[in-house]
């Protein structure tokens, strides 16, 4: 298979990003693409491991060594087919997946993993441009219909598979266009919305029916859906953000990350006009509370909005630069991650506890923080404040990027009286079915907020279970 000495001859080469000064002036994708020859060379670095740890760590079980080999040989079409065998939307994951595969890559033992994610997106983009990807209509229709609520990655993946299996699938989306967080949560500079449109158009051509601006539980009674469809799949995501209930929370200028990000996305897509509706960080001293990926997206967006400064604080300590002995390969490396947004100009402070907001004229002006120290007792980590470190950070635009706690319970879920688990996520059995007969669930609404790739995996699993359910009912 492949070039067995490829990894010795070829160094890891990333496509790299557009120059900072240029990219912060627009919302277009930051990452660049490599020419085909270099891409194939990069694929030649894959060693076709006896145990492909990459594949093992991939939530959608991507057959990475197989398509890397085909890519190396220039068999782009075959490579796409192998990629598509496990992943409906490689053009999404290829752009935004944190790529646990690369963490688990055997070459990552020497910190030079194969550029798996970039290879993935290169294959699928080539497949689109060469026209390998064309609508494939099911040979026959089963006569069964399925409703899928929510058009994020989980809902889309489930819809795609069920439609291809011959069922008639209707996708319900509460917002203007399908995509869920892909469309409204993730900034364009990471995932251009044209990419989503391209895929959605394809699905529609294949027979998928989509009803946008339709919130089930509000615009349509949920029970009606259950009675009208042979199966229902709930994939509404984990929409309820975690709040920070401290003094001064009621002040203006404090936003949830998702309000901020979706506002910019809506403007970019022309759903709303920027004048008057814009939640703008322009000329603001921005403080992002929360050090995760969403926080980072807020940083990048704020910079593009020409914030005067951006600071990001996180309650956890700063991760190490290299793996620690108790976080060995091939597990996901919990090391300091610097995103393109961070590079664009942002101060990051770790081990910060946020104590209160302080403002003037109902507008936030200051945030009081203090250092914390983390300790482990009996394997449980807890923090305590470091005395004498309290101080005020000047900030007039606060973004809360503290994650999500559970799906939105009002409406659909409360109407259906779907059983929830301890964390108020939807409870499902081994076949992804909820407590309600023929109602299934997938994605973040089941697992809690997670990665796009996990949502796709969950949607695929639900689709297979629903298909089995429909065949036997």
């Amino acid at each position, binding site marked *: 298979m492949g070039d*067995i*000495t490829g*990894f*010795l001859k070829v160094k890891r080469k990333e496509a790299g990003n557009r120059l900072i000064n240029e990219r912060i002036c627009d919302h277009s994708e930051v990452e660049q693409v490599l020419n085909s020859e270099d891409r194939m060379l990069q694929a030649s670095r894959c*060693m*076709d*491991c*006896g*145990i*492909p*740890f990459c*594949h*093992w*760590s991939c939530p959608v*079980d991507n*057959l990475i*060594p*197989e398509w890397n080999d085909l890519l190396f040989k220039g*068999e782009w079409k*075959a490579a796409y*087919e*192998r990629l598509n*065998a496990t992943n409906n939307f490689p053009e999404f994951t290829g752009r935004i997946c944190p790529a646990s595969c690369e963490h*688990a890559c*055997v*070459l990552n*033992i*020497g910190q030079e993993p194969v550029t798996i994610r970039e290879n993935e997106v290169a294959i699928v983009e080539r497949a689109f441009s060469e026209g390998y990807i064309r609508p494939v209509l099911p040979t026959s229709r089963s006569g069964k219909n399925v409703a899928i609520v929510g058009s994020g990655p989980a809902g889309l993946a489930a819809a795609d598979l069920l439609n291809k*299996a*011959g069922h008639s699938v209707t996708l319900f989306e509460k917002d203007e266009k399908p995509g869920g967080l892909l469309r409204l949560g993730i900034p364009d500079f990471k995932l251009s919305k044209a990419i989503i449109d391209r895929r959605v158009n394809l699905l529609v051509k294949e027979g998928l029916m989509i009803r946008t601006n339709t919130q089930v539980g509000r615009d349509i009674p949920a029970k009606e859906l259950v009675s009208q469809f042979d199966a229902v799949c709930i994939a509404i995501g984990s929409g309820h953000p975690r709040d920070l209930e401290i003094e001064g929370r009621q002040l203006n200028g404090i936003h949830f990350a998702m309000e901020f990000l979706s506002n910019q996305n809506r403007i970019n897509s022309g759903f709303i006009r920027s004048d008057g509706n814009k939640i703008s960080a322009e000329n603001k001293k921005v403080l992002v509370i929360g050090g995760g990926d969403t926080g980072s997206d807020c940083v990048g967006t704020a910079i593009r909005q020409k914030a005067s400064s951006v600071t990001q604080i996180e309650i956890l300590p700063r991760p190490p630069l290299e793996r620690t*002995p*108790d976080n*060995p*390969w*091939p*597990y996901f490396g919990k090391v300091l991650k610097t995103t393109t947004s961070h590079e664009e100009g942002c101060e990051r402070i770790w081990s910060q506890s946020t104590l209160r907001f302080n403002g003037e004229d109902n507008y936030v002006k200051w945030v009081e923080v203090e250092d914390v120290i983390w300790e482990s007792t009996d394997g449980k980590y807890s923090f305590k404040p470091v005395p004498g470190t309290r101080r005020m950070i000047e900030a007039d635009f606060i973004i809360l990027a503290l994650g999500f706690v559970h799906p939105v319970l009002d409406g659909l879920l409360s109407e259906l009286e779907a059983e929830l688990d301890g964390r108020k996520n939807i409870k499902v059995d081994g076949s992804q079915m909820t407590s309600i007969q023929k109602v299934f669930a997938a994605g973040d609404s089941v697992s809690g907020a997670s990665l796009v790739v996990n949502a796709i995996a969950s949607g695929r699993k639900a689709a297979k279970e629903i298909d089995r359910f429909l065949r036997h009912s």
Partner: protein
Amino acid sequence: MKTYRPDKEGLYRQEFEHGSCGIGFVAHLKGKKSHSIISKGLDILKNMTHRGAEGADSKTGDGAGVMIQVPRDFYLIQGYSLPPEGQFGTGLVFLPRDLNDAEKCTEIFLRIIGEEGVDIIGFRDVPRNNSTIGEIARSVEPDIRQILLSADISQDDLERKLYIIRKRTEKAIRNSEIRQKHFFYIPSLSTKVLVYKGMLTSIQLEEYFSDLKDERLQSAIALVHSRFSTNTFPSWDLAQPFRVLGHNGEINTIKGNRFWMEARESILKSDKLGDLERIYPIIEPEKSDSASLDNVLEFLLMSGKSLPFAMSILIPESINLKNPISPELRDFYHYHSTFMEPWDGPASLIFSDGRYIGGMLDRNGLRPSRYVITNNDLIVMGSETGVQLFAPDEIREKGRLKPGKMLLVDTVDGKVLYDQELKTKLANDFPYGKWIGKNMVKLEEIETGQIVSPDLGKLHQKYITTFNYSFEDIERIIREMAATGKEPIGSMGNDVPVAVLSVKPYRLFNYFKQMFAQVTNPPIDPIREELVMTLSGYLGSLQQNLLDESPDHVKMVRFRNPVISNTYFEIVRNLRYKGFSAATLPLHFDVREGAEGLKAAVDQLCSDAEKAVDEGKNYIVLSDRGIDENKAPVPSLLAVSAVHHHLIEKRKRMQIDIVVESAEPREVMHFALLFGYGASIINPYMSFAIIDKLVRDKAIQLDYQKAEENYVNSINKGILKIMSKMGISTLRSYRSSQIFEAVGIHPDVINKYFAGTISRIGGIGIDEITEEVLIPHRKAFEEEPQSEILTEGVYAFRKHGEKHAWNPETISLLQWSTRTGDREKFREYSRQADSDTVSPMFIRGLLRFRKNPIPVDEVESSDKIMKRFVTGAMSYGSISREAHETIAIAMNRIGGRSNTGEGGEDPERFKPLPNGDSVRSAIKQVASGRFGVTTEYLVNADEIQIKIAQGAKPGEGGQLPGHKIDKIIARTRYSIPGITLISPPPHHDIYSIEDLAQLIFDLKNVNPEARISVKLVSASGVGTIAAGVTKAGADLITISGYEGGTGASPSSSIKHAGIPLEIGLAETQQTLVMNNLRKRVILQADGQLKTARDIVIAALLGAEEYGFSTSALIVLGCVMMRKCHLNTCPVGVATQNPELRKRFHGKADNLVTFFRFLADGVRELLAEMGFRSMDEIIGRLDLLEHNPEVNHWKTKNLDLSEMLRLPAEAAKNDMHCIERQQDKLSSVLDLDLINEAGKAIAEKKPVLIERCIKNTDRTTGAMLSGRIAKLYGSAGLPDGTIKCKFKGSAGQSFGAFLVHGIELYLEGDSNDYLGKGLSGGRIIVVPPAGSTFDSDKNIIIGNTVLYGATSGESYISGVAGERFGVRNSGAIAVVEGVGNHCCEYMTGGRVVVLGSTGSNFAAGMSGGVAYVLNDKGNFDYYCNMGMVELSLVEDLSDIDELKDLVTKHYNYTDSKKAKMILDDFNKFLPIFIKVIPYDYKKVLQEQKLEELKRKIANVEIDIEINAT
């Protein structure tokens, strides 16, 4: 009352037994009878005592016997009144000891004698003395009487009558209800010969039968045999000689030969013997392979065939183009091969019918046979020279039998008949060539206008799914083979479950495992020795009487390759040549009827096949084309075997051939199975369809024809390899030889469809077989079609594919826990690995042990337990220096032992490191390549391991590719960087069990302190082999599971050769305990051992030591890339690339942690079970039970009861090793030499020692050399310090491992293995003074000389046997003539041959130079040109070298031939040929170039220096 051999007990089966032996005869050429002939014969036996074996009581021999002419005068003198010579016959009769039963047997015997019209003269009591025989022998000793018979008919008629009487009597008693009938046996019943034999040692024979000491007993012939059986239950009747022959060797194809003989009985007709039904079966049931061959040989003689004829058709010589035989003889062999498949396997045979006596070797000639003819008309032939001593001037001729050749003495005409004379006569009896030319057609030459496309069109995807083709089948197997013409290679063993333990559906093929030769017979090298191998066969008319000769016999189609394209298959299907016709039978069953449907379909196939025979069809085509939603395919293997066995049972098999057209076979193993169960030709149309698609999709960049050819070639090569593993040379004899063991098939299925196949743990029945066909069938026809083809993950891990024991979880947890020393993580690892094991993945997962807890602190310490741990044999070369040394350090720290593997060891490593650590490997391995096996290496061992087989590829050789050999590796292997090194499949000094005993003896001589161990691979019969190995003197036996192994190997070998550890280990334990041999030997187990639980189960199954390879490598960083063979290991473990080696981060500490954690875990388990030490649980099969909770749909009928049966003998016999083997070193000549050379050794003062030597003085010089190497390392002593002069015939291994400073001078001759492992010493052999024969025409030393020699010199004034200089890597040798395979696998040194050579010269030779005197001008015909080029000796340095060597030869030996050459050197120089390997030449040139550059550079420096 103890019976004979148990038929079956636990996992032991009677059929596993093997024999091999010392044989010989003495005869007077002119038939002059004397007693001295008999006593000389018996002396031969005594002089070959070391070739026999003794049982556990050290007294019971495996069997010895003698055949003489019927001594009529002996009885006359004793007062018997006898009819004239020829009208009188006699024989011994073994009778039951129970008088009543004896009476009953006698009654039957006498009745039949009467019925045949023969008169009984009377019985004679045979004087016997059983006081000296062993206890075991005595416990099964029969009563023995002698019968005297007469009839007034011609001698030939009476001889036949006696044969019929014997056959009838045997049958009648066999079929009777007599309780002790198994005692009854007639060693011989003849007017011509008389056999004395029994379960005796060579020495006991004449003590027991005092007739033999009686001077009045006279004969002109004495044919003797002493037996060394691996078998553990030797018996009186299996002693040899039999009625006609004595056999040293093994018939590998015995199952097939027996089946075919049985099948043939229906079409035999003999005027001479009349109604043959009376004497059937021709082959007595439940006797040894040799006995069966004897049965057939005797039958042929009785039906009027001559001895040479019968021997030539049973054991034909190879008719390859390099065998210089006449076209007529070639036609003779060709003609007879159409209806008698070879009895294939190593064989040295001696035979006699009372008038003629002779010997022959099989085509490979792997057993030695030497003879001497004296001026007094005596001929002595034997496995060794020196078994009879003659004064030099008495000797008229000395010779050896050559491969495939025969020698016969006619004691009536007083003539010696040589091979050529005998065979010329045979060849000219009939116009065989003409008959063939007229009646036989070659398949490849049939013209056809029609090309049949491989494309299946729309059906393609349906067939892919129905026949369960995975992405790996297509990509890794078919595409690889079609693109490259080679079988894919893998590494790191097999860690997926055997088919029966997997929940996934498998093809029936996967339930079978290849068997392979180990110890009792050698595998063949299918590449270097391809000359003797063939895949050709015949199709068509077989219904001919073997006893008849006519042109009609060869009305048939000959094919060269048995795997044929669609186009040729259409020809076969439609062939109407000479009235041929075929019946096509569909391999379909009705899906709706399930298992019943499958059964019915197979029944139908059987009856249709029978009908086809009745209708006179020539062959049956079994075809699975045409499946659909209602028709599922009958597994092709099931169909072939069922039909084959059905037709045998109906006596209709000979009349028809089975041809298969199937979508099922895709990899080599599948084809091997179909042939092995009876198919003649296979058309794998699905493979062709896939190749066609791959070509159309441009996934293979070749045209279809070439891709198909590549694929077929790969399959062919693979089949040759599988055959060669068993030592089988021809597909004709492999066909239906059933050399497989089933793992996981229920006995009902076996008995009904696969009769004769071993299957010992039960398993799937017809229901599960059906389900395995239907699961994919449903997927194809019922479920939604899937466009993508699944990757099953059989070869490389896939998440939803087949389970792998080494998976991301187990690997990462193991590395994590051992690097951080985190005990809790290790527990997590163990839990994960154990739960994988019981999922179930290995057979041990089905087992559980009883618990009876005691406190842990009462259990012996972990330190003690760790001493039982060893690491596997992984050579420095296959793994990096860093990995190799880290393992050694860790094992030395814990008091375990690491293993060098096959590759030598840098002497630097023998010294301890400053910090107290040691990188010395305690176990030094001796493998077939003998790389780096020097005397110094051996004396630096605590244990010397003889690797017979390895788990990854039992029965195969190996290759270390040149790119992995850097300077240091080359140095430790005594080779040259960049030159590929080949390890031959067999050890060329172990072709049999007595050879192994010899090697063990050699090694014990070199290093008397070291334990000698023997590594075997789990296979059916491994227990019996282990018993033989124990008898051969091994201190330790390793049983490797097939699943283990880290080495690179063809995928089919990794997956399909050998069986799981548990079965082999339990069988070994059971067999050794039953024979009370267990106490003498330590058992070690390896094969995917991972956790404390694995260790405890291995202990309970019988192992006291435990080997780890894969797990150790994983601790050191291995991530199961399975790319070891490509030198690209990214973690620096299995690579020599300096860049990659930098990535190695393994630490000895981590390994120590691993072993400590394991030992701690073992302690905990011991405490749980209630035992305080490991010794208490070893072999306690009774503590294990089959856990019924571990199961799934395929495992429910597994039956482990035989595996877990504790033999009854366990009550009294020891269950683990308690004593040390007796080494038998106390009488070696070397003790005397060491004594004499005391001063020379201590003070380096020269000494000359003169001694007489005889063939029982074996391994002379080795112990002396060991002493010196221990003191002085490889440097030895100054040249000529110790000189020994010997007179006589030296025993085997003369001068083995001789070190620098010792010179052995032998005047006389010598046996096999001279100069084995020569390490700097000098050996000179000259004919005795007064010899009258020409030295360059007479044999003086035996076979396999200088095997594995690394340095030193030898000068042989005479001719050597086969394989002179095999695997020589540095010694210099001059010899005056050689047999076949000279310089095989040579990698260095110089060989000069001043005379003629045999064929296959320089096969596999990758280094060194040979000079051959090509005085007959035909050397290129004898040379294997695969790796070498020939040139004249023109280079000045070459001329100097050659002249120097010949001069030395003359100086040391006084050789006439050398003198003649030197006297006129310029005349002889042009007829010398230089033989040099291409690669070697290139490397030498590069070296020269570098040398030149260095010189130039030096000159430049000089100039510069001078300039300044």
